[in-house]
């Protein structure tokens, strides 16, 4: 029954989809104030390395390690965010790209701490940790009819699923709050937003820090799910990959990066024969999308259309809240 349904490989892929969704949202959040940050792969690396090193060298529980990783990334995000705020558009994109490169070079060269380009292995694994904790309470996965490693992958998936739902829930709430409206106003017109009394410095740094926090968090999860990290995991290509999730899915609504991360992580796994050409296809997708549909596949209009389709009588409702969600 349950045992036959659980293929560790499928759950592994599903876990990566969930982590990528969190990463996609991290870029979306910064972008929702009109700032393009390409440093999120770097922040992800900071989170991953912080958590991995803390749990390995100081025997910190994984939960604390992940929280520490996310906080360190957020702190760095604030430090980077404040000075780079005076930059806009492409300048910010390039500086954040450069910052990501600096982080990568530091990871490679600080060998005494990070083991250089070899990477860190033997990072405590979330699933195994959960299993051993539960076993301490006298629980045995055989009760559910599962092998140990099936249970490990299932527990990781469920944990990440709950976390991802929580993240989505939080940012959807935020979108409809005062903060979300401030973000949208800044994205639309910074000067107008400022003259309306919105503290744009505060909100831009907030968005930047949230993006950093979230990518550091995702990076820490990544480290403890994979149990191995190396500087190459957090290089330029990762930054671009995360960006593609958002660009492909749509950067206007939170469902865009979620869909983008889901589809683009799943596609190479399902279409194995394509995976060799994966990045070429990525490149083509970006070029075509920018020319045809620069806002991404999912945008506000599409969502409204789906909504009005869903409730057929909702014509009056549909016009009233075009800007929400």
């Amino acid at each position, binding site marked *: 029954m349950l045992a036959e349904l659980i293929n560790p490989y499928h759950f592994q892929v599903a876990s990566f989809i969930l982590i990528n969704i969190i990463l996609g949202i991290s870029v979306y959040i910064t972008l929702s104030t009109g700032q393009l940050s390409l440093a999120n792969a770097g922040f992800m690396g900071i989170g991953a390395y912080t958590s991995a090193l803390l749990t390995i060298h100081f025997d910190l529980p994984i939960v604390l390690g992940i929280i520490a990783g996310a906080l360190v990334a957020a702190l760095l995000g604030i430090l980077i965010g404040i*000075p780079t705020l005076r930059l806009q558009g492409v300048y910010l*994109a390039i*500086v954040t790209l*450069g910052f990501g490169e600096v982080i990568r070079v530091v990871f490679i060269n600080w060998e005494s701490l990070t083991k250089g380009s070899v990477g860190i292995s033997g990072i405590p694994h979330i699933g195994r940790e959960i299993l051993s904790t539960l076993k301490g309470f006298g629980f045995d996965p055989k009760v559910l009819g599962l092998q140990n490693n099936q249970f490990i992958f299932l527990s990781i998936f469920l944990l990440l699923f709950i976390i991802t739902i929580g993240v989505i829930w939080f940012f959807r709430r935020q979108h409809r709050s005062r903060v979300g409206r401030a973000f949208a106003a800044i994205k639309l017109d910074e000067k107008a937003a400022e003259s309306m009394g919105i503290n744009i410095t505060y909100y831009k740094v907030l968005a930047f820090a949230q993006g950093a926090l979230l990518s550091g968090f995702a990076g820490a999860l990544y480290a403890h799910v994979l149990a191995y990290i190396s500087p190459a995991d957090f290089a330029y290509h990762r930054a671009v990959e995360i960006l593609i999730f958002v660009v492909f899915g749509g950067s206007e609504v939170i469902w865009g990066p979620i869909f983008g991360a889901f589809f683009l992580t799943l596609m190479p796994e399902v279409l194995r024969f394509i995976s060799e050409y994966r990045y070429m296809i990525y490149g083509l997708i970006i070029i075509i999308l920018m*020319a*045809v549909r620069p806002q991404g596949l999912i945008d506000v209009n599409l969502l409204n259309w789906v909504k009005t389709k869903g409730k057929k009588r909702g014509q009056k409702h549909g016009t009233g809240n075009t800007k929400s969600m």
Partner: protein
Amino acid sequence: MLIEQLINGITLGSIYAIVALGFTLVFGVLGIINMAHGEIFMFGAFIGVLVTTSLQLPLWLGFLAAILITAVMGYMLERFALRPLRHKQGVSHLAPLISTIGVSILLENLSHHLFGAGNHPFRASFAEINFQIGSITIYLVQIVIFVISVILMMALSFWLGKTKAGKALRATAENLETASLLGVDTKRIITMTVIIASAMGGIAGILVGMAFNSVTPQMGLSMGLKGLAIIILGGMGNVKGAMAGGLILGLAETFIVVYGDSGYRDAIAFLAIIVILLIRPQGLFGQKIST
């Protein structure tokens, strides 16, 4: 020792300057960061390897082939990735940046498939010839690279400053609409700019291949990122700034390898731009930032 390093630094710097010129031309006219420039540069280097090493043809043919092919690539880039985005309502100013990132991903992986991921040696027939002046060794390759770079920079400066097409380009860079009202065919100028910038990237590719005797699909990325750093260092869209910025970065990198930690060589460029943007955001030679 010091003078030898100085020569190495200037050689490297003059190559950087040419790469950066390609970026700065496109940015000056279009206001776009061309993230695909590094990959076009890398293709130029591969064309050079194919012509000189695989086909055993002379070096000047390698240059010619590289210029032609990268020019065509520049045209395609403009035609398919940039032109569709221009004059389109409601397109974010980040769209062209993302679009060129798409081109760069495509080209990088295309070259993986065409040329393989490995390292291709690039042997110029005169690679071993060197001169001894006192205790200093100068390789002929270095002189060739330096001379070609200087000629290229001078030709570009002359072209931009004195010819009609160059003036039209500068007018377009200053204000596209006004230039177009004054009878400049801005569409042609834009296409021409991207083509010239790409061809310069192709030449730089061969020069880098000769300088390091190695060509890989990854070189486009690292060189492209450095080119970006240089134009920020020198001031965006500023031709003289790109040349000076290239030389500064070349010298800085060479000297950190000699006197510091060689591992951090690739980080200098970015540390420099982070510092520059904090202290003097318009760049060393820039006038003011246009936002």
